[in-house]
């Protein structure tokens, strides 16, 4: 839809002017707002860059170290910042040695089973409590709310779990924290926001509550359910205190405990190859291996994160602000 044949004299002038103006005025800045000062812009830029670097740089150097040779870490005395000799030796060692692989499998298994269980149970409970007139939803809601304000305490909980015979069982990592009242409230809040006309129409058409939940409510709530599932998933994957409490058997350790013992506390990894201790400072020995274990513990989060991240604002804010 261009104007019919602009005269040759005018065209170059506008072409020159337009980019120059766009440089000064961002298309996102409203017309009434004053132009930013150079100092302000530069300051803001510096802060933002530092902010991003503070998070990205440690991850970068950990990743790089995990791909570096042992010799490289000895030369630098610690983490590697400038890429030198690269190798996947560390990964080969931890992925063939039993301990880390096993722990990773345990963590992922618990996360998968736990997240599925928690999400299903929470969605059902949230929907069950979401009808404003349903029988008994108020006292049940109260039962949930109380757990948000009064924790039973570590010791009695421990004794209950052990009384149920769950010590050294993977279920001890799943069941005690399986439902979070907070997540249920987020879901319930969202479900209550769904126009009742839709569900009522389905009811008139003869759909039962289960069918309404599965066919109408769930398809409309993808974002919120995804966010809640992420919350549960992360808490299962990161859980390390429950594992300290309930898992005494080293063979059943999840990844976080392996991380703590072998990476943070520097206990030697059994099975992850003969420790190439070259007689130099012991703290540095095996650093690439340690960093590889860390990377292994980060990867699942990095894999899931991008898919859920865009729902955060939609999903979280909705429930969170209103409690």
């Amino acid at each position, binding site marked *: 839809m261009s104007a019919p044949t602009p005269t040759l004299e005018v065209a170059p002038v506008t072409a020159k002017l337009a980019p120059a103006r766009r440089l000064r005025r961002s298309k996102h800045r409203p017309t009434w707002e004053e132009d930013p000062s150079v100092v302000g812009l530069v300051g803001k830029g510096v802060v933002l860059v530092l902010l991003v670097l503070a998070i990205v740089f440690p991850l970068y150097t950990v990743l790089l170290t995990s791909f570096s040779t042992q010799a490289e870490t000895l030369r630098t005395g610690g983490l590697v910042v400038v890429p030198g000799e690269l190798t996947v030796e560390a990964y080969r060692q931890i992925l063939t040695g039993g301990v880390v692989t096993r722990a990773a499998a345990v963590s992922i298994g618990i996360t998968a089973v736990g997240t599925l269980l928690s999400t299903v149970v929470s969605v059902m409970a949230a929907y069950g409590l979401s009808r404003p007139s349903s029988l008994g939803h108020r006292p049940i809601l109260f039962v949930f709310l109380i757990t948000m304000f009064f924790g039973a305490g570590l010791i009695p909980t421990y004794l209950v779990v052990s009384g149920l015979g769950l010590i050294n069982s993977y279920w001890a990592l799943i069941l005690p*924290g399986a439902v979070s009242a907070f997540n249920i409230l987020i879901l319930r809040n969202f479900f209550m926001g769904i126009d009742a006309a839709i569900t009522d129409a389905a009811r008139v058409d003869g759909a039962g509550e289960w069918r309404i939940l599965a066919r109408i409510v769930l398809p409309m709530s993808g974002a919120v359910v995804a966010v809640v599932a992420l919350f549960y998933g992360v808490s299962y994957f990161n859980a390390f205190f429950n594992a300290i409490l309930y898992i005494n058997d080293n063979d059943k350790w999840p990844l976080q405990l392996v991380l703590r013992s072998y990476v943070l506390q520097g206990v030697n990894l059994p099975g992850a190859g003969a420790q190439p201790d070259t007689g130099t400072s012991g703290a540095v020995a095996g650093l690439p291996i340690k960093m590889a274990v860390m990377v292994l513990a980060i990867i699942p989060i990095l894999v899931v994160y991008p898919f859920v991240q865009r729902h955060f604002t939609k999903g979280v804010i909705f429930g969170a602000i209103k409690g």
Partner: protein
Amino acid sequence: MSTATRPTTPATGSAPTPGAAPARRRPAAPSVPHRKLSLRTRLRRDAPLLVMTLPAVLLLVVFAYVPMLGNIMAFQQYSPYTGFFSSPFVGISNFARVFANPLFLNAVGNTLVITAFQLVFFFPVPILLALLLNSVLSPRLRVFVQSVVYLPHFFSWVLVVTIFQQIFGGAGLISQTLRNNGYSGFDLMTNPDTFLVLITMQSVWKDAGWGIIIFLAALGTVDPALHEAAASDGAGRWRRMWHITLPALRPVIILLLILRLGDSLTVGFEQLILQRGAVGAQVSEVIDTYVYYQGVVYGDWSFAAAAGLVKGLVSLALVLGANKLAHVFGESGVYKRS
């Protein structure tokens, strides 16, 4: 069957303008007179809903309510061999021991110091970051920064502490770099004097980014017309921030502040237990870790349960009090909901 007009929550319309009194949307009295249904009818109608909540309720009963009852052991001379039911009752002697114990009092002191320190040096960070990020014009840049700063929230404490150890520890990156250039190294991870700074840095790194999400949401509700009007009246950038942006954040700030106060006996359990060994219990022992060591590690079950119960009850009182305070300030508080 279907009740005529169920009051629907306003799906459309403006989000509640911050600052305005939270209009509790009581369902308007139904225009059609409500026919009272018999309990049997309602039970039959709502049975599926009740069945749906059952698994969650069961889990909570077993893992939250039974342990609450288990707190009875704080009044007993509990021993694993005799169990809850046949352990002798000893009245409040466990509590007397708890309060006479200097280590417990030290743990309480540490808890409060850490909370206070984080309140001053952690709490404002997300607010400042949100203000900064809100002033970034390019949506693409803003989304990018947001997704980066949210990320550490999803890392485990083990991971965060390990990363800090690798950067700030005695054999860490900074120390090594200094040493390679002829300066003396340092070890931030094992220094009790700087422990407060260290754990606050860790908290900021992990959670400050996540904290901005709620402030950004509040900022998103500000009507640009307000800014425009102020600007046309000659208010500069900073004046507008002071008189428009900050008041928009006020309700959220107050709410979170009060929540934090109510939660002040709980400071990062995992974070502290991970680093307790490195800096010593003198500065890092908090109530939670103390309870853990007394009970699970040293086997003084009743004593630890008593200490835990004290903490639980004081926390409960603080939360309820804080919520009350929130109502006084005219905020909606935490639990007062439909």
